[in-house]
Every structure is written in structure tokens, then in C-alpha cells.
């Protein structure tokens, strides 16, 4: 019998556990030339703000050892354009769409949630409190457990859509932040956003990125992400969407075993647009080999030994 790879995040049902990581897939349009977007369990859109943002100036992307540093700066056309021009395209896809929202103030997030709430195409909201690349951006919220509680609680009052809080790894205790999100009524947490880093051009004796610092992603960060998911899994009951450097089937399985109920692919899309197909095939094959009939049996399994 074919193993069941359906997954569930709150009330959101996914055909498979693979999501796009926000900011690495636009709103799906570009990759629809290369791949059938229905291979995804859901699409997570590029971070959306109330007003349009032109992003950071200077060099925005630098390759590092097994990874990249980026400082795009939440470039996006703003919510009005998104609703008018992007939602109709997403609606036609008939796959779950998770809209990633970001703001400077709590009321920006509230306004975004309020305006997106009426649209049935928007299956869930991912709340970006972890972008490392904008000065007054979400990171100021995401590193403060009290503010994460507050923002989640306020959004909970505005929308019944599943609320996913995207957490930053750039904190001493990610578990404490996840606990606050759960307490305030989040349906899930997603982690990790990028790790803050920088690179210096030694010949020019200057930082490489126009924004000086940026977010590190790619295979280099995978062990860090995996550890955080493993850790947070023991501290909360709500589902975890795991991400950070997944490039192949083994990585995806490891994230599920660590406790993720869904997984997002990000940087790998830039290198291999066929990655979701390859990873899905690996997952099915893996489940057959190990006699798992559903994803549920795998989630968090790596914690077993400690419990014994």
C-alpha cells in the first residue's frame, strides 16, 4: 500500500508535507515554467508588507561555504497589488496558499491579517517576526518573547485562519519564544529563518553585502535548524514546520524525525527546481523501506531513545 504523506497544520490539510520557504519562490509563478506546482503540499508566499518596498541597495546575495547570505530587504509590491495581481493567479492553482506577512509595528500585522482574512484563497498566515534584513522589521519582535505573545494574541482575535509564527534562530532560547507563540494561540511555528551573518571582501576591505549583514541559508545551516526543531519539539504541542538547509530526501526525513510535521524547501529551489519531486520520491521510498504507513508515525521519532 502507498504510504500516506498527508499532513495537517491546525485546520490546514496538506497533500504532502512539502512547502516552499517564504522568499525563495516568489508567488510560484516563475517556477511554474519548470515544475508542476501541484507537487507541493502548499505555497508560502514572499514576505508581504502593507506598502510596497524596494528592498536593500548594493550587493544582495553572496555565496558562502555551502550556503548563501542574502539581504534582499523584503522587496515586495505591497498588499494592494498582491490582492489584485497575485491572488487571482494563486487562486487558480487550487493548492493551499500560506501568506507570509511582515511589518514594522504590531498594527501593521493586524492590518495585513484583517485585509487578507476575507480571501478563501489564503489558507493560512505565516507571521514573519524574524527577518534579519530590515532595520525596523520583524526581528525586533521575534527576539522578544513578550512581543511574540502579544502579536500572536492580537492576530488570533482578528483571524480564524491557521496562524503560523516564523521564528528566528538569532536568539539564546528559541524554545521560550515558541512557548509564547503557543500560549497566545498560534496553530504552528515555523523555524528557522536565516542565521544572521556577514562576509568581508578582503581586497576592498569592505563588507560584501550592501546591508553589511544578511541572513545565512543553505546546507551550511542544516544542523543548526535540525537541533532547534528537535529542541522545540520537546517544549510545545503545536505542529512545527521545519526548514533550514534541506537539499535532499535524507534531510527532509531527518527534519520529520526531529519533530517537524511539515517541511519547507528554500535555497535549494535556486539550485534545483526539481528538488520537491526528488524529495517526495525519496520520502515515499523511505517510508516503504521502513514500513511506515503514514507520516504521523515518523514525526518526532528521533526522540524515542531518550524516552525509553
Amino acid at each position, binding site marked *: 500500500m502507498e504510504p500516506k504523506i498527508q499532513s495537517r497544520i491546525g485546520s490546514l490539510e496538506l497533500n504532502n508535507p512539502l512547502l516552499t520557504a517564504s522568499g525563495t*519562490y516568489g508567488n510560484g509563478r516563475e517556477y511554474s515554467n*519548470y515544475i508542476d506546482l501541484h507537487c507541493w503540499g502548499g505555497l508560502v508566499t514572499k514576505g508581504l508588507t502593507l506598502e510596497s518596498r524596494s528592498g536593500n541597495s548594493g550587493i544582495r*546575495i553572496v555565496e558562502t561555504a*555551502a550556503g*548563501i547570505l542574502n539581504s*534582499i530587504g523584503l522587496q515586495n509590491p505591497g498588499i494592494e497589488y498582491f490582492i489584485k495581481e497575485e491572488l487571482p493567479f494563486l487562486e487558480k492553482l487550487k493548492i493551499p496558499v500560506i501568506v507570509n506577512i511582515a511589518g514594522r509595528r504590531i498594527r501593521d500585522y493586524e492590518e495585513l491579517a484583517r485585509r487578507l482574512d476575507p480571501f478563501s484563497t489564503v489558507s493560512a498566515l505565516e507571521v514573519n517576526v524574524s527577518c534579519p534584513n530590515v532595520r525596523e522589521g520583524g526581528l525586533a519582535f521575534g527576539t522578544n518573547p513578550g512581543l511574540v505573545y502579544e502579536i500572536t494574541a492580537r492576530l488570533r482575535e482578528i483571524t480564524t485562519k491557521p496562524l503560523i509564527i516564523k521564528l528566528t534562530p538569532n536568539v539564546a532560547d528559541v524554545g521560550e519564544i515558541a512557548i509564547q507563540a503557543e500560549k497566545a494561540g498560534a496553530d504552528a511555528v515555523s523555524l528557522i529563518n536565516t542565521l544572521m551573518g556577514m562576509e568581508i571582501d578582503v581586497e576592498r576591505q569592505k563588507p560584501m553585502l550592501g546591508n553589511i549583514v544578511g541572513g545565512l541559508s543553505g546546507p551550511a545551516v542544516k544542523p543548526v535548524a535540525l537541533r532547534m526543531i528537535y529542541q522545540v519539539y520537546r517544549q510545545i504541542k503545536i505542529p512545527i514546520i521545519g526548514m533550514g538547509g534541506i537539499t535532499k530526501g535524507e534531510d527532509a526525513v531527518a527534519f520529520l524525525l526531529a519533530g517537524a510535521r511539515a517541511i519547507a524547501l528554500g535555497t535549494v529551489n535556486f539550485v534545483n*527546481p526539481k528538488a520537491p519531486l526528488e524529495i517526495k520520491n525519496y520520502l515515499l521510498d523511505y517510508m516503504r523501506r521502513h514500513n511506515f504507513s503514514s507520516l504521523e508515525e515518523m514525526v518526532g521519532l528521533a526522540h524515542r531513545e531518550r524516552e525509553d
Partner: protein
Amino acid sequence: MLQESVLIEKNEEIAPGLYFLKIRNEQMAGEAQPGKFIHINLGTIYDPLLRRPMSILNAQGETLSVLYQVVGRGTRIMTRFRPGDEIDVLGPLGNGFEIEDSGQNFLIGGGVGAAPLVFLAHRLPKKGVDNKFFLGMRERELLFIKDFLPEEVEFFSSHENSPRGEAKQVTDLLPPHLKTKKKTSLYCCGPEGMYREIAGLCNDCSDFSIQVSIDRRMGCGVGTCLGCAVKVKKPPREEPQIVRACVEGPVFRWQEVNIDGT
């Protein structure tokens, strides 16, 4: 646009540190246009991580070629590709040059970045048109490019170590050719400083259009990562906007990218 495993036909060092790579894929070759690029997966399984964008040097029948200079880890790895190997290629990507109906076409290249102009030289109309290729080099390392050009294209070159009185920069070659009343199209590939100088030389000329290929660090190559931002001003919009070199470019009108008007 495709993501395909393609066969390598040739990967040869044709001048010190400069390689000629030829791949076989009928559809990719068919869709290739001057100014577009292909995005090559190094096959390193994620270190170095990103694909390498390469301008198309030429495309004929079922094959497509690029010219690359060994400058870092990625291009050094590419030198190890062997004929018969298969590599994962995405493309052709980007917009390409718009071939205009002009009395003469000037193709102006600085360094190895001039490669797409070779392809363009093959696609320009031949009858009743003057096509001229101007190439700036450090030494004489790129002279072989002349052999890639169609016969009817006039070739001029400059080198930084030229004796006194001879052209050192590619822009030194241009002034005598600019004294013309013919409608002239300039197609340029090189550093942005070169574009600025060329535009300066054309300031007093009447009927000139300038297209330039803009070089940016690229991530995905298909328009999602927003890494390769270019600030442009496109009338009728008065405000500058940010576009992507990989989708809306890499070729732009000079007046669109020269937004501060210098």
C-alpha cells in the same frame, strides 16, 4: 526555458585561463538569443552552492557554447567538465538584445564579457548594413574572438598595454566611427564605467540607441530570489523601480539604467 541534463561536447582552454564550453541540446539551442544566458549547475552537490550564469557565445543547430574565464572556485570546477559528461543546465534565461533596424551596428565589448556580442554578430542583418565589432582587452588574450565572427563584420581592438598613440581603451577606438549621419545601434557588454564613457561619446550624436548588458550577482536566475536587483527608470513612470537582471534584463536601454543622468 528548460531544466535539462545536457551533454558536453567540448570544454577546452583556448587561451590562458579562458575556456570554450559547448553543450548539446536542440531545444535550448533553438531558444537561445544573443544576450540571454544559461544557468549551469556545477554538480558539486551544494558546495559551491549556486548555479553559474553564463552568457551564450553562440548557438547553432543542436549546440550552444559559452566562453568563461577561470576566476574562482566555480569556474575552476567547470574546467573539470569532460566531453561526454552530462551537466544540469537551466535556460536560456533573460531577455536578450533587441536587434534594431539601423544603418550600422556597433558591438562594443570589454573583456571576456564580450561573448554575447559574438552571438549577436551572427544574428545581425548583413545586407546594406555596416556591422562593426570593437573589443577592449588587457593584453591580446582575446584576439581569438575575431575568428568567431562572421566575415563581413569589421573588427577593431584595443589593449591596455598598447604603445603610445594607439588605442588603450575600447572607447579610444570609437570617436572616428561616431561621425556619421546613419542611424546607429550600439550593443554593449562590459563594465558599467565603459557604458558611461560610451554614452558620453555619443552625447552629441543624433540618431543613436544604446543597449547594455548589466552584470549582477545572481541567485536563482529565474526571478524569485530578488538578489540581482537593478534600479531602472522606465517612462512613463517617473519613479525609479527595482527590476531583476535575470528576468527584465540582463539587457537594458542605457537611459533606463542611467537614472541619475550622468
